[in-house]
């Protein structure tokens, strides 16, 4: 990240009643920074603050080296004065205006003449393949079309920064993949920084270059999507990317898990606090204690639940430690696995991903 001076820098707090959002982040020009987190993590508050819809309580926000909001200095640029394009979750297309008028709104509001604004609108409509829909009202659009119109409307104002709030969440599963691929292309064309808020890990992994994970108003992890998918820092992220996550203390090849149990790991020479991540498919389930196996970790557990996923069954297992394990439906039938069944779990030391928590995972 070499051009941070021309990107977005947020180092601020927003207090709303008992909730406090405290974030420090940087998004470089051309970068898509994904903001992943559960509902109530403060993701939308972050976008509001950056857009100027909510002033910060402390700290500052700068864009391209210019101050947007500075609580200490008492300066604030109103939302209308910020070069920001905002794609809202439900798009918020003006229902009384046609598609072309919606897209021409920003150029017009930012001071262009009627004819110039219309020309700008048609340029963006053509670019997003929306020219045929120019005269429709938002109520006559499909979800995917509305999403594209919202993006065109945001881009037509020639923003220096793009904000996307759950851009695909209002779409049905069928159109989502197409719109997602298209959105990725348009984001690649955008030269400014882009903040993309989502609670869908797939969306974040596909669209973002860099990710931050927020929980309870703060950033709990940042890194590339690949790093975060492989080495989640919190239970929330582990659950999102479908991994078992165990905090513990390492002492050479042995890790004592803080919630009970222990693992033998391929020796990394680690000492102190570590996190261990295990894929549910790496855990082998047997009804009897395995003999003469090469796997180094074997422990008993009780099945507390079974969930059918697309092509496998996910077992909820209670033991030292508890775990999620994936098996085939055939295995469930052959081994007569039921809630309450006692089973043995094994996992190879080389299938355990061991890493240090809190390690800055910047690219």
């Amino acid at each position, binding site marked *: 990240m070499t051009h941070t001076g021309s990107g977005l820098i947020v180092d601020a707090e927003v207090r709303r009643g008992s909730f406090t959002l405290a974030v420090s982040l940087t998004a470089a020009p051309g970068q898509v920074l994904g903001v992943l987190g559960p509902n109530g993590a403060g993701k939308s508050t972050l976008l509001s603050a950056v857009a100027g819809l909510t002033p910060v309580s402390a700290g500052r926000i700068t864009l391209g080296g210019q101050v947007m909001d500075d609580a200490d200095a008492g300066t604030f640029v109103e939302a*209308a004065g910020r070069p920001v394009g905002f794609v809202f979750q439900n798009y918020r297309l003006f229902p009384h205006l046609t598609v072309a008028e919606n897209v021409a709104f920003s150029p017009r*509001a930012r001071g262009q003449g009627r004819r110039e604004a219309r020309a700008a609108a048609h340029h963006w409509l053509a670019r997003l393949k929306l020219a045929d829909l120019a005269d429709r009202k938002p109520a006559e659009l499909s979800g995917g079309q509305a999403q594209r119109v919202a993006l065109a409307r945001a881009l037509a104002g020639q923003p220096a920064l793009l904000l996307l709030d759950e851009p695909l969440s209002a779409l049905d599963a069928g159109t989502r993949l197409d719109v997602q691929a298209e959105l990725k292309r348009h984001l690649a064309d955008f030269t400014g920084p882009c903040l993309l808020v989502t609670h869908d890990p797939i969306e974040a992994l596909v669209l973002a270059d860099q990710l931050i994970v927020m929980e309870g108003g703060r950033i709990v992890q940042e890194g590339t999507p690949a790093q975060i998918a492989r080495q989640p820092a919190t239970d929330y992220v582990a659950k999102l990317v479908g991994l078992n996550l165990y905090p513990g203390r390492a002492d050479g090849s042995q890790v004592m898990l803080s919630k009970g149990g222990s693992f033998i790991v391929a020796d990394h020479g680690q000492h102190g606090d570590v996190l261990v991540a295990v894929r549910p498919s790496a855990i082998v389930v047997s009804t009897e204690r395995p003999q003469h196996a090469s796997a180094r970790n074997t422990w008993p557990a009780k099945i507390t639940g079974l969930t059918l996923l697309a092509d496998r069954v996910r077992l909820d297992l209670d033991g030292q430690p508890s775990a999620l394990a994936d098996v085939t439906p055939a295995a469930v039938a052959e081994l007569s696995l039921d809630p309450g069944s006692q089973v043995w779990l094994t996992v190879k030391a080389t299938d355990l991903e061991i890493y240090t928590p809190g390690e800055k995972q910047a690219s």
Partner: protein
Amino acid sequence: MSPVAAPSRLSSAERARRASRGGASRSVPAPLLVPALIAVAFLVLPLVGLLIRAPWGRLGAALSGADATQALTLSLWTATVATAISLVIGVPLAWVLARSRFPGQRLLRALVTLPLVLPPVVGGVALLLAFGRTGFVGRLLDSWFGLTIPFTPIAVVMAETFVAMPFLIITVEGALRSADQGFEEAAATLGAKRMTVFRRVTVPMIAPSLGAGGVLCWARALGEFGATITFAGSFPGQTETMPIAVYYALENDPDAAIALSLVLLLVSIVVLVSLRDHWLRGGTVA
């Protein structure tokens, strides 16, 4: 266990209706039905009386009289001007009440809606005391501009505005409160200043309520009697509006009174039809 009640008749038509409406019996119990019918009779019979006694044969003659034409013309233009004034100053006030926060706001809202419940004649007296020749505002108008308001068409417009504007304000304020402010936020992020947001987003979004409030305001202004006769008097051609004309005509020319009443009834029906989406669906004002 409770016993099963004796079965009653249920026709196939009634079965189909209940199935499609989803609900139990729709029959009305007698203790509710009888008072309800009395209420209907009470509301409808006077109108029937008006229609029965109407001088249908010489309706044209009764209405074409100079007094009737003058009253009708005066009523139409004063009500229209009063509505226009209410839109110009009432809509901004509705916005202020709905969107800003300041001390004394609740008191202001109460004051603004007071004319809704105030007897109109009291409003007329109040207007007279403020804007009459000796009133504290009227005296200044008189000495500075030589302007005398009472007993002129201006007084008619003022009386009508005083009584009718609150209808517009509460309708529009309700619409502003329930309107999704997300659209205004979106407009702001697109670079629109507050006045542009108001003009290009807020007003179009509340247009239906603006229309309904305007029609309601106009209808109320058209029917205004108490405040007008107190503040503006009843000079034919100057301040004698339709309702006042009806009242005086009843003494010496009942046929004309009935004919004028029919015109007002017709206008009311047109207003009601134009407001049907707002009022006849059992919803609220906004």
